[in-house]
């Protein structure tokens, strides 16, 4: 499988050969050299979802997060600003933040006592005469910060590249889906306050990204739970479904299930929750948005969108994908909570807990597929993974986006097309070197 590239650094020509319009090569999931290049060109370059402002509501709050294998501390300063710091002491590289979350305006390295503010500035180093006194401290560095931090609807993204497209450019049409998600709150805000379950899989991260908007698999992977719970989710992903798979550009894609939800025509029908179970929520939504608009919001439901490379919103749950090695990935999963909707939120937590995580009645089966797939692509032949499903029946919607039917692989093809633009940038501009410097500055 690695014969095409060996273990050498992948060249643009080599990558173009591996990513083709209707198939991709198995080594993309198994070659450590390709994984190393992905970290550099995707994870340490493009915008990556890190966390949500609701996880650090007060000044001085902090929470540990990640960008791929990179340890990040997300902090809120006294003025309310959000910062992303690399968890690495400027002295000898120790992790300065040990707790998963907490409340502190500064971080003291346990090794030699260097202290940093929650914006990354060096506040002090013990016995500073060794550095020529207080003046000498100015020569020393602070914590590295993620060069670019962007927030949209409370979702905090970071880019380890000092320059590049803006967050708005990166999100493109995905932004409107986050708007749609937020509108399901009577106060217009999402909150991620339920904590995360961390589910590890022995598989390449792209197996997960591709699966998130793969409408072909639910009927098979999840048939066990659909058949006994009487769930109609399986029908959303069938030949008869009016749902579509949409390529949103930028590697983002969605399963647009709203046409099916509108056919149901019932507020919160998409969530399988009758109005009678959440009367306060429904009443408040109608009160805030007006009956007609409120009902429309509650009928159309929540998005099912994969925001490349690591944020997956699946109606009521949110996944953050963290690659650790070519065959090791962690999914951080939480129940989405809507500000001002306590009755709905409690249902969302219990519903989500039943579905996701290591013991989840849906996600444990997805994880099994990822891991079997990983072991499968390590086999030599037939070398390629087929991506042609629906290629001949794609159309363009009114907004100019490519769409396929509910079960077509339109989303995967668009992900790979964007992948190639990131992995195979124009050689003349050579932005990679500055990217690496930015990541380690």
């Amino acid at each position, binding site marked *: 499988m690695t014969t095409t590239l060996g273990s050498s650094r992948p060249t643009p020509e080599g990558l173009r050969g591996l990513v083709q319009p209707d198939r991709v090569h198995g080594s993309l999931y198994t070659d450590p050299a390709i994984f190393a290049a992905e970290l550099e060109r995707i994870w340490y370059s493009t915008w990556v979802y890190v966390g949500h402002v609701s996880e650090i509501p007060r000044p001085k709050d902090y929470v540990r997060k990640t960008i791929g294998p990179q340890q990040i501390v997300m902090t809120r300063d006294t003025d309310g600003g959000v910062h992303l710091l690399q968890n690495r002491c400027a002295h000898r590289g120790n992790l300065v933040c040990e707790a998963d979350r907490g409340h502190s305006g500064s971080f003291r390295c346990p090794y030699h006592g260097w202290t940093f503010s929650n914006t990354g500035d060096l506040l002090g180093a013990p016995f500073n005469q060794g550095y020529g006194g207080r003046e000498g401290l100015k020569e020393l560095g602070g914590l590295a910060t993620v060069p670019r931090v962007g927030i949209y609807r409370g979702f905090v993204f970071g880019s380890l590249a000092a320059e590049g497209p803006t967050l708005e450019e990166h999100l493109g049409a995905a932004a409107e889906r986050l708007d749609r998600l937020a509108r399901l709150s009577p106060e217009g805000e999402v909150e991620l306050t339920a904590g995360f379950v961390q589910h*590890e899989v022995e598989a390449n991260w792209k197996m997960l990204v591709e699966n998130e908007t793969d409408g072909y698999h639910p009927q098979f992977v999840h048939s066990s739970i659909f058949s006994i719970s009487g769930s109609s989710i399986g029908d959303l992903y069938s030949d008869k479904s009016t749902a579509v798979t949409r390529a949103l550009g930028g590697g983002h894609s969605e399963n647009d299930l709203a046409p099916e939800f509108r056919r149901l025509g019932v507020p919160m029908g998409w969530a399988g929750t009758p109005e009678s179970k959440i009367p306060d929520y429904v009443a408040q939504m109608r009160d805030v948005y007006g009956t007609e608009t409120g009902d429309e919001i509650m009928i159309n439901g929540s998005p099912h969108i994969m925001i490349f490379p690591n944020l997956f919103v699946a109606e009521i749950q949110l996944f953050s994908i963290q690659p650790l090695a070519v065959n090791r990935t962690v999914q951080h999963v939480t129940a989405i909570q809507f500000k001002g909707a306590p009755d709905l939120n409690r249902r969302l937590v219990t519903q989500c807990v039943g579905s996701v995580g290591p013991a989840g009645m849906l996600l444990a089966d997805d994880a099994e597929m990822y891991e079997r797939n990983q072991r499968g692509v390590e086999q030599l032949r037939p070398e390629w993974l087929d991506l042609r499903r629906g290629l001949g029946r794609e159309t363009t919607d009114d907004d100019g986006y490519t769409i396929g039917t509910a079960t077509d692989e339109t989303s995967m093809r668009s992900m790979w097309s964007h992948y190639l633009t990131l992995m195979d940038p124009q050689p003349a501009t050579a932005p990679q070197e500055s990217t690496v410097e930015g990541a380690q500055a």
Partner: protein
Amino acid sequence: MTVAAQQIVDGTPAPTAGNDTGTVTPIGVDEAAQFLYREARLADAHELDAWEALWTDDALYYVPIDDTADPMTSMSIIFDNRGRIATRIKQLHTGRRHAQRPPSRLCRTVGNVEVLGVEGTDTVVTSVVQIVESRERGTRFWAGRVTHKLRRTDDGLRMSTKKVVLVDSDRPLLSLSFLV
């Protein structure tokens, strides 16, 4: 265990005061241990129906991430009421629960059994479990502190609560698709 933990949002009746007149014959440590061993053996052997029959109707099967958090507002690894336990068992019975196809080969040790006291009609028992799980992807070791609430019924001992606090509950975990 919080009261809230016993009333899952999607339909659990509130815990009953018990099924007798209030006199509880204490459950000793030997009797409790025998129950725990049997439960462990049934789970290891994937004797799904026999395992399910050990539960009371007001069951709570709980594997927290953070044992101090409120499971009504925080994520858990497992938070099953009686209905959801039944769903879990039915899913395993379909033969299409891929994460358990083929079923994990399991061997668990239950130890350090202590009777902590009585809560209403239930006797609270704590123990430690260590589980070796073998699957195609490899062999995995699981360990945790377990709390059982056992109740004497006309049909013998039953469990109303089983809580398993894994030593690594707040870290990334591979799939845990067998009955822990």
